[in-house]
């Protein structure tokens, strides 16, 4: 939970408007937990003030290199996509509470379900689960073939089912249409994506244990501004802050 300057070592479009950015620097060594995010500044002189929360997608500790995957959608991420190798980014993080692979109960099988730009953190999570001997299966969804990414890399970690809304790759439909065959009472569910998707996942996986990663528009990213609250019934206050209590919550803990 510190501020770092990391140097861009690559920044390439790997699918339609999807960029893979690698960043290098000593700050990387604290980035051990999947599901945590980096709060990325667009640049000191930019008229875009607020930082962008981006999940850790992978870390190479030997090279001191973190990988981020992001979609160039709005002004800020479009500006990020124009950055050149060698430029430095001002980054806070890792922030939040991630998927705590070591301290949470594990099961033999893990089903990792992600949609669109919610997919990236599942890669780092899947890698760590596999290292711990868990049998990982991925169900990842995209809008269309041209938006899909990392399918091969996921396949190297475990069985990977792909869905696309338009049917141009894998099964036509949503991730929730494709997850059933891979679920069993032994499965631990991990899911990242928009709230509507998480809600559907929660319903499909009723009765199973799991973790969900939420997203919301953020101000501070560190729990001070109350921009990112989400209602919960399990806490006296009635809410959690996604940036600092989450973004990862136990399934059922928050009201989606």
């Amino acid at each position: 939970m510190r501020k770092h300057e990391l140097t861009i070592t690559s920044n390439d479009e790997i699918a339609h408007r999807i960029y893979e950015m690698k960043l290098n620097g000593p700050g990387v060594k604290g980035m051990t937990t999947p599901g945590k995010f980096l709060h990325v500044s667009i640049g000191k002189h930019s008229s875009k003030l607020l930082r962008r929360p981006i999940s850790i997608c992978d870390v190479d500790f030997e090279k001191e290199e973190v990988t981020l995957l992001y979609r160039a959608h709005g002004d800020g991420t479009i500006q990020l996509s124009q950055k050149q190798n060698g430029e430095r980014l001002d980054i806070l993080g890792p922030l939040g509470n991630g998927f705590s692979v070591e301290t949470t109960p594990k099961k033999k099988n893990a089903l990792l379900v992600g949609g669109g730009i919610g997919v990236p953190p599942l890669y780092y999570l899947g890698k760590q689960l596999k290292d711990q001997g868990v049998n990982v299966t991925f169900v990842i969804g995209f809008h269309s073939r041209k938006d899909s990414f990392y399918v091969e890399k996921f396949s190297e970690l475990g069985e990977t089912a792909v869905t696309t809304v338009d049917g141009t790759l894998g099964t036509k439909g949503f991730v929730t249409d494709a997850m059933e065959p891979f679920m069993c009472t032994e499965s631990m569910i991990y899911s990242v994506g928009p709230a509507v998707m998480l809600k559907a996942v929660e319903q499909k996986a009723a009765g199973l244990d799991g973790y969900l990663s939420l997203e919301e528009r953020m101000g501070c990213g560190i729990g001070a501004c109350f921009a990112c609250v989400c209602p919960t019934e399990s806490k006296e206050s009635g809410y959690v802050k996604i940036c600092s209590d989450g973004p990862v919550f136990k399934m059922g803990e928050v009201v989606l």
Partner: protein
Amino acid sequence: MSRLHVSLPGLNMKNPILPASGCFGFGKEYAKWYDLSVLGGITIKAATLEGRFGNPTPRVAETESGMLNAIGLQNPGVTKILENEIPHLEPYHIPILANIAGSTEEEYIEVTKQISAHPLVSAVELNISCPNVKEGGIQFGTHYQSAADLTRKVKEVSEKPVYVKLSPNVSDIVEMAIAVEDAGADGLSMINTLVGMKLDWRTGLPILANKTGGLSGPAIKPVAIRMIYEVSKRVSIPIIGMGGVATAEDVLEMMSAGASAVAVGTANFVNPYVCPEIIEKLPELLDQIGMEHISELIGRSTKEWKTPLSSR
């Protein structure tokens, strides 16, 4: 560091910098980033009588050099703030300015009574200018008779000096400032946010669930400077200036306009270390302009005007 020392009613500050209300929680989170005792003071998040959940999300949206927020005064209520939040600030030995909000005069009065009695609270800041709650302040903030009445009643019960936080969404801020000064305010805080809105061009719908929100950040600094300049010439109570301050240079500008201390809001989100970084840089800037003590800055702008272009 005595060259940065400023003293305002109830607020004896070793430097003029304090975080603005709502942008620093109750200090706990930023205390993980740096030692809060370097601050000149701290403004805590608005307290209401009962706890409030605030507005639905999304609660923030980004604009050019600014942001909109519609948090909606989320807070656990004054009792819990007194029990669970304020005590955490004791070790830092810095003045605490407690921001107070409410829907009715009675609520403001009751919250003031309770919070101003806490020994760690140095002064209260009456938030009569929150644009993000339907019932909650803004009606006091735009009608100067209501603002004056409220100030008078709150002054009667407050055990600590009272700062009134003014809304910039008015035709005549000077009139408002004079009204609350006459009603007994010990100081002014200005400015709160401008009411703004952002739509998603693709859908045409507001980004904020609350539709409108409060505009803060560097975008509004020129409005803040103008208002502080105009008001400071017409009142004799001190002003805590705020609105878009992000650098030590901005602090000099705002104090020159007439502020006696400066609060930093949105910039904390951009850089969590912004307050200590500003504080550290101030002496260097004073050296550059050959000034001994920071208080000499206050109100420099009202001195006679010379064309600055030929100064190169």
